[in-house]
């Protein structure tokens, strides 16, 4: 085996960088701390999505005539197809939750501050791309739920002043939802988004390695800040164990409740009530409060404000203070948004129920 590695190393020179990567010292206070496994868990969830996505792509037919039947075949006839699709389905929700939690941890620990601004920005972009994954994947089964949610979603984009018509045509590939829309969403879902996410993850990890983990904020952690463990095997094993736990949870959720597949899309249906995926529910609830002429407030201003706030955060909050209990404004503001999102989500779910 050593001869094989030596042969490869002589031709690639990889042993040095790999050794450096694996031996990277990690502060002991983050070891076996759930809050510091969120990034690794998100990466594991992304890998699960890639693997299950490739398996699904073996059988998926990205045409309006064949998409539903192929997903139907995967779900109800293909051996273990229900399991693969279920893990992919619930994995997408897990990605949203894990990215959100990871960003919350970063936010509360002020890990976005200098010199880690770019790491925060790549994280914000990754959150946006994970939501885009969910939005594009929703349509692919070409069932009633995906079709009508996409119709509403693209109409929201179309309501943007000045560029709305351009956006809706870009997303749909024409005036209406059809083959061009499905092709674009499929290409985005399996090519553009995975490639973009992979590049950003590499950039994110590179930044993490470059700057190291953000300074500890508690006295207990600070006391351990000078003690290190190697990334491999210590931390890698912890992340792997956590990842396997996540996989077990996804398998259990699939077993308990198979991924839903509604009836095939009927564009002529006039009584179907569109429902978004749960992580977009709060936004649909928000739209209810801004009807008619006020709609651009919800479709443009609020998303721009939130996204802009996240982008600008590390450049606005430049204080040295990192302890959230000493930063009541930023802490309370974030708690307000979390509560609003949860309440809006619950209200929307209750309305759809």
């Amino acid at each position, binding site marked *: 085996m050593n001869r094989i590695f030596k042969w490869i190393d002589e031709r690639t020179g990889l042993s040095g960088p790999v050794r450096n990567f694996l031996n990277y010292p990690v502060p002991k206070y983050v070891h076996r701390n759930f809050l510091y496994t969120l990034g690794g868990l998100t990466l594991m969830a992304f890998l699960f999505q890639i693997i299950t996505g490739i398996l699904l792509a073996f059988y998926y037919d990205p045409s309006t005539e064949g998409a539903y039947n192929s997903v139907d075949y995967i779900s109800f006839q293909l051996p273990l197809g229900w399991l693969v699709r279920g893990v992919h389905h619930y994995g997408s929700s897990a990605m949203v*939750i894990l990215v959100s939690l990871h960003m919350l941890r970063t936010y509360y620990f002020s890990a976005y501050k200098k010199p880690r601004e770019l790491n925060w920005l790549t994280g914000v972009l990754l959150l946006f791309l994970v939501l885009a994954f969910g939005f594009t994947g929703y349509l692919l089964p070409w069932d009633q739920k995906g079709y009508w949610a996409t119709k509403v979603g693209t109409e929201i984009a179309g309501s943007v002043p000045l560029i709305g018509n351009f956006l809706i045509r870009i997303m749909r590939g024409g005036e209406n939802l059809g083959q061009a829309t499905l092709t674009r969403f499929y290409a985005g879902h399996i090519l553009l988004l995975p490639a973009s996410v992979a590049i950003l993850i590499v950039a994110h990890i590179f930044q993490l390695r470059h700057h190291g983990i953000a300074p500890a904020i508690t006295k207990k952690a600070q006391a351990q800040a000078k003690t290190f463990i190697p990334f491999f095997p210590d931390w890698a094993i912890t992340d792997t164990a956590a990842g396997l736990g996540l996989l077990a949870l996804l398998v259990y959720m699939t077993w308990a409740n198979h991924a839903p597949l509604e009836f095939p*899309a*009927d564009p002529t249906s006039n009584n179907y009530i569109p429902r978004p995926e749960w992580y977009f529910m709060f936004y649909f609830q928000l739209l209810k409060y801004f009807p008619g002429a006020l709609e651009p407030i919800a479709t443009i201003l609020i998303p721009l404000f939130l996204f802009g706030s996240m982008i600008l955060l590390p450049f606005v909050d430049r204080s040295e203070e990192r302890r959230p209990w000493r930063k009541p404004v930023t802490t309370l503001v974030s708690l307000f948004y979390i509560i609003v999102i949860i309440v809006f989500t619950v209200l929307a779910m209750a309305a759809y129920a």
Partner: protein
Amino acid sequence: MKRLLLAETLALSLAFVVAACGGATPTAPGQGGSAPAGKPNTLTAVKVDATSVDAAAPYWAQSPKLEVTTSGAAPDKPAGPKVTIQAAYDGQYIVIRSEWADATNSLQDDTWTWDGKAFTQGGEQDFIAFIWPIGNNATFASKGCAATCHNSSAKQDEWWMGSDSADVNYDGWFWMAARTNAVSYTDDIRWVNLTDPKDMGSPRVDDAKDSGGPEENTDGATPPAPKFMSAKDMQALILLEADKVPFDQKMLVAGGTVPGFVLAKPVGSLGDVEAKGVWADGKWVVVQRRLLNTTHPDDAVLIPSKPLPFGVAVADAAGNLDHKIAKDVLTLEWK
């Protein structure tokens, strides 16, 4: 700080779990032997160890009831009865129990009547019919049978029922009080594409059979007369293959009747659905049972866990021209 974040984690995780489980709203099992009410327009089949056509099987107490409102298929006809439907399944079979009010037990089915000089033939029976799309059918699932497999002509003699495309077929379970119930099955039929607009009945075709099935009881002469009669009962409205004897005019008195069909349970796909219907106390209770997958190409495949849209119709001695249909889209789900 850790506590705060853990609380947030728990809250968001809880939202995730609730959302993920949101698709299924479990129905509480029945208490004290009364079946629970089901979701609107949804027939929930419950898993049981073994199914049968027993209308009093214990598992019906646990099976949610779907109350189906029926309307006249023709706009000028009155509404029909409410049909209460329940379903259960085991590893191989699905069984569906239907119950609806019907003041009369109508067993006339092209019955011959002798007035002392000549025969007349007529009479309509009660029936209940289920329709299932074969394969995935977006329009049927979205709009139901009333919108997709009935035409809308105002003239009843131009009515037909079937599909408007050669690629679209429907599986039908056509239980009839006279023609099929006596031999414990339901006609397993198909509705296919209307290819001959002059033959409005052409989209309805029987599934394949090897033997058996109802045979018209006519001698084919002009004017026609019955070919067989019952060896046991001169007043019988049902004539089984095993009971038939050659028709003897001398045995019949004025006002006497002879069944219009000779009945034998079919062997083959036509006889896939076994059935048991009982009329008592002003209502029909019909239980139908079929393999989830008959492997016959002319049948819908029922896959537990896969929801399936369906339609239902009933008739009270009225035939196709005044049958009552469920206009809403109905969905079969599995628990």
